[in-house]
C-alpha cells in the first residue's frame, strides 16, 4: 500500500512545486491586502457613486465562488483580448477574492477607532491622508491582525484551486506524478503533509499573536 522508496523518489519534485504554491500565496495575499484597503476606503468615500460601485463589486466578488472567478479570468478574459499566464491569472483571482474579505476586516478595525480620534485629528489640523496613515490605520490594523493572519492561512490552503487553471502547483504536480505511475497514495499524502507542516506552525504563531494583541488592546 505505502511504498517508502516511491515516496522519497517523488518527494523532491513535489517539494519543489511548493515554491509555486508559496509564491502564489504571498503575491496573492499582498494584492489582497492592498486592494482590500482600497475597497474599504472607496466604500467609506463621501462620493456616493464611488462608494456604491465599490460596495457592489465587493458584494459580487464575495458572493460568487472563487473557482468560477478563476475560470472567468483564465478562460473568458482572453476572448476580450486579455490572455494571462496561469500564475498571473491565479494570483489575480486569489488576490481579488480575498481582498473582499479583507475589506470587511479593515472596516471592522477602522470602526473600532472611536470618533474622538477623527475629531482630534481635525482639531490638530491633520489632512485626510495623514489622518489615515498616522492616526486611524495604526490603531485599526493591530487588533485585526489575527483575523488577517487567518485569511492568509486559509488562502494558502485554497491555492490547489489554481490547478484548475493549469497552474502546476503542488497538487497538480502530485497529480501529474500519479497519472504517470497510477500510484496516487504517496504523492497525495505528501501534498497533505506538506500543507500541514506549513499551516500548523503558522496557526500556532497566529495564536501567539492573538494573545499578545488581546493583552495590548
Amino acid at each position: 500500500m505505502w511504498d517508502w522508496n516511491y515516496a522519497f523518489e517523488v518527494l523532491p519534485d513535489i517539494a519543489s512545486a511548493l515554491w509555486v504554491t508559496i509564491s502564489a500565496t504571498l503575491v496573492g495575499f499582498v494584492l489582497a491586502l492592498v486592494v482590500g484597503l482600497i475597497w474599504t476606503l472607496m466604500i467609506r468615500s463621501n462620493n456616493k457613486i464611488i462608494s456604491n460601485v465599490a460596495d457592489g463589486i465587493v458584494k459580487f466578488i464575495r458572493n460568487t465562488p472563487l473557482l468560477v472567478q478563476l475560470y472567468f479570468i483564465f478562460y473568458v478574459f482572453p476572448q476580450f483580448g486579455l490572455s494571462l499566464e496561469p500564475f498571473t491569472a491565479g494570483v489575480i483571482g486569489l488576490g481579488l477574492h480575498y481582498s473582499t474579505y479583507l475589506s470587511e476586516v479593515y472596516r471592522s478595525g477602522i470602526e473600532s477607532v472611536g470618533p474622538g480620534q477623527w475629531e482630534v485629528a481635525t482639531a490638530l489640523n491633520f489632512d485626510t491622508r495623514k489622518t489615515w496613515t498616522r492616526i486611524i490605520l495604526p490603531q485599526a490594523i493591530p487588533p485585526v491582525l489575527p483575523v488577517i493572519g487567518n485569511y492568509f492561512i486559509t488562502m494558502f490552503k485554497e491555492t490547489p484551486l489554481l490547478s484548475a487553471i493549469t497552474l502546476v502547483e503542488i497538487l497538480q504536480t502530485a497529480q501529474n506524478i500519479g497519472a504517470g505511475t497510477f500510484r496516487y497514495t504517496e504523492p497525495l499524502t505528501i501534498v497533505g503533509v506538506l500543507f500541514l507542516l506549513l499551516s500548523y506552525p503558522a496557526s500556532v504563531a497566529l495564536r501567539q499573536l492573538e494573545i499578545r494583541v488581546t493583552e495590548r488592546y
Partner: protein
Amino acid sequence: MSEPIVRYNNVTKYFDDLQVLDGIDFEIQPGEKVALIGPSGSGKTTFARLLMTLEEITDGTIEVEGDYLWHEQDDNGDLKPASTEHLRKVRSNIGMVFQHFHLFPHMTVLENVMEAPVTVQGRDKKEAKKAAEEMLDKVGLLDKADSYPAQLSGGQKQRVAIARALVMNPKVLIFDEPTSALDPELVGEVLDVIKDIADQGDTSMLLITHEMDFAKEVADRIAFFDGGKIIEDGPPSEILYNPKAPRLKEFLERFMNTQSSPE
C-alpha cells in the same frame, strides 16, 4: 479695543430639523478668556465645535483674524463655501482640548505632543521634540514622556492633551468641559494647569465648563447660553452675582443646589 480675533455673525446651526444655534453674534478679543455656561443642549458645545470645524455651519459666518472660516470670497466678493485648503489654513489658528482627552493610544506621551508639529506643521524633529518637552514640563509631566496614555491617570491624560494642543501655538484654545470626565480628586490638577496657561499666555480661551468657581477665577467674561442663544454676557462678577435674565438666575440657583451634578 483691538480687532476681535474671533467674530460670529448671525451664526445659525441646525441638526436636521432641530435648531441648536439661533442667529448668534459674538466676539472674542485677542488674549481674552471667555467661559461658556448654560444647561445641556443650550448650544454652547455646538458653538465651540463650529469654531473648531467639527460641525458644519448652517447659516451666518465666523471670522478668525478677519478671515472667514467657513467661507471664501470669490472675485466678486461674494461668499462661497470654503475649500479644504482654506478651511485648514484658517483652522490652524484654533486648538481644542476635549472632554475625553482623545490621546493617541499608539504613541508615547512625547510622541503624542510631537506628532502634529512634525506631521502637520512640518517642523524640524529636534525642534519639535524640544518644544514638546517644554510643554510637558509646563503641565508637569516631563517624567512621563516615555509612558503610554494607558499608563496615565485621567488627570495626567488631560494635561498631556493640553500640552498637545498648546504646542501648536493656537491663537484660540477651546476647552470642552475639560474636567467633566475626571474623578473629583483629579479635577484640581487640570484646573491648575489651565489657570497657569490663562495667566501667562496671550492665547485666547473659550472654556465650556460647569466649574463656576473656576470660571470666575479664570474668565474675563462669561456667556450664558440657553435655547441656542446667548442670553447674557458680561464679567464674572455681573453674571454670577448680579444676573439679570430670569433664565440665568434660575440656572445659577439650580446649579448651586445640585453642585455635585450640575446637569
